[in-house]
């Protein structure tokens, strides 16, 4: 039985974890900055990274279908497995909906999203200040939900490792059970 995630799944997981932490930090910092060239730069970088995450999530979801994750350990009760599953579902949903809300917000605020300053994404909404404010609120609120979920996600992983002493955390770590290293 498969006991560890595929190396590419691990890479995608940790790359996105890093990207999302960066995006969250940048998002909070830039929102509170007074208007300056740096602020406009940070907004552009945040948008470029957000679009990148949006595309990566799709790759990740496709990869997840091709290489399903290892099953939950038998020691987990059925309700707990459902809870974990629901949490993961929500994490994926937010990783798609949050960049989407940012993209729509940009359109409503009249600042088109141009990926890496080169590839323009179509404006799905026309300029509308009130709608822009509403989407800004939605984008921010969804991120607080994401933060809560991440706290739960990390907390659960640590609980599995230190309290339940199972392999839920280690199977997502780089070298655990990689091919040819089964006894490590």
């Amino acid at each position, binding site marked *: 039985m498969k006991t560890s995630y595929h190396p590419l799944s691990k890479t995608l997981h940790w790359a996105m974890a890093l990207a999302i932490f960066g995006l969250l930090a940048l998002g909070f910092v830039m929102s509170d900055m007074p208007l300056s060239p740096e602020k406009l*730069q940070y907004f552009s970088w945040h948008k470029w990274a957000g679009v990148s995450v949006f595309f990566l999530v799709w790759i990740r979801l496709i990869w997840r279908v091709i290489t399903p994750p290892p099953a939950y350990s038998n020691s987990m009760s059925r309700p707990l497995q459902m809870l974990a599953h629901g949490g993961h579902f929500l994490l994926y949903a937010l990783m798609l909906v949050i960049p989407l809300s940012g993209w729509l917000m940009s359109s409503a*605020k*009249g600042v088109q999203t141009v990926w890496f300053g080169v590839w323009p994404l179509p404006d799905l909404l026309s*300029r509308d200040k009130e709608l822009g404010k509403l989407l800004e609120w939605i984008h921010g609120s969804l991120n607080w939900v994401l933060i809560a979920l991440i706290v739960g996600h990390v907390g659960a992983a640590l609980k599995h490792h230190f309290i339940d002493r199972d392999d839920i955390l280690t199977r997502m770590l780089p070298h655990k059970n990689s091919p040819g290293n089964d006894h490590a």
Partner: protein
Amino acid sequence: MTMHKLFSLTLTTLLATGLSTQAHALEYKSIQAEKSSLTFNYKQMGVAMDGKFKKFTAQLSFDPAKVAAAKATIDIELASIDTGSSDADQEVLGKAWFNTAAFPKAVFVSNQIKQTAPNQYQVTGKLTLKGQTKDISFPLKLTPQGAAGQFTGGFTLHRADFSIGEGMWSKFDVVANDIQVNFQLTALAGK
């Protein structure tokens, strides 16, 4: 007015226009603010941005039959800017940008208007912005619309030429130097 006088007046007009398409002399004078606009476009971090000035006045005397005598003056109230973001609207009033406290208006005064083709003209004049006056030149197109005439034109303004965006904004990596200014003025013809 006698028939004779009317005839001679018409003849004079025809001669004056050089038998151009303008069969009768009209002078475009009063600007219809609600049908006129002054917009600008620029790039910010590679993103096409646009905005407009909501308040400007124009004095125009433009007789297509006497282009050499045509004149235009445009006064733009810089504080009426709409960049699409209230933060930016506030920012550009400051010293680094327009410094509207010291220089509330931009003024364009034409020096010369030349016809280049039917209903096409080249305008040269002086633009005063933030205490600096520079010569600018731009093509102008006239579209007659019944009793009114629609004048459209535009030019590229290099913001650095007028110290628009100083200090931390003076580099062009975030806000480009080239600002495309476009106008559309609708003027009613009068005598």
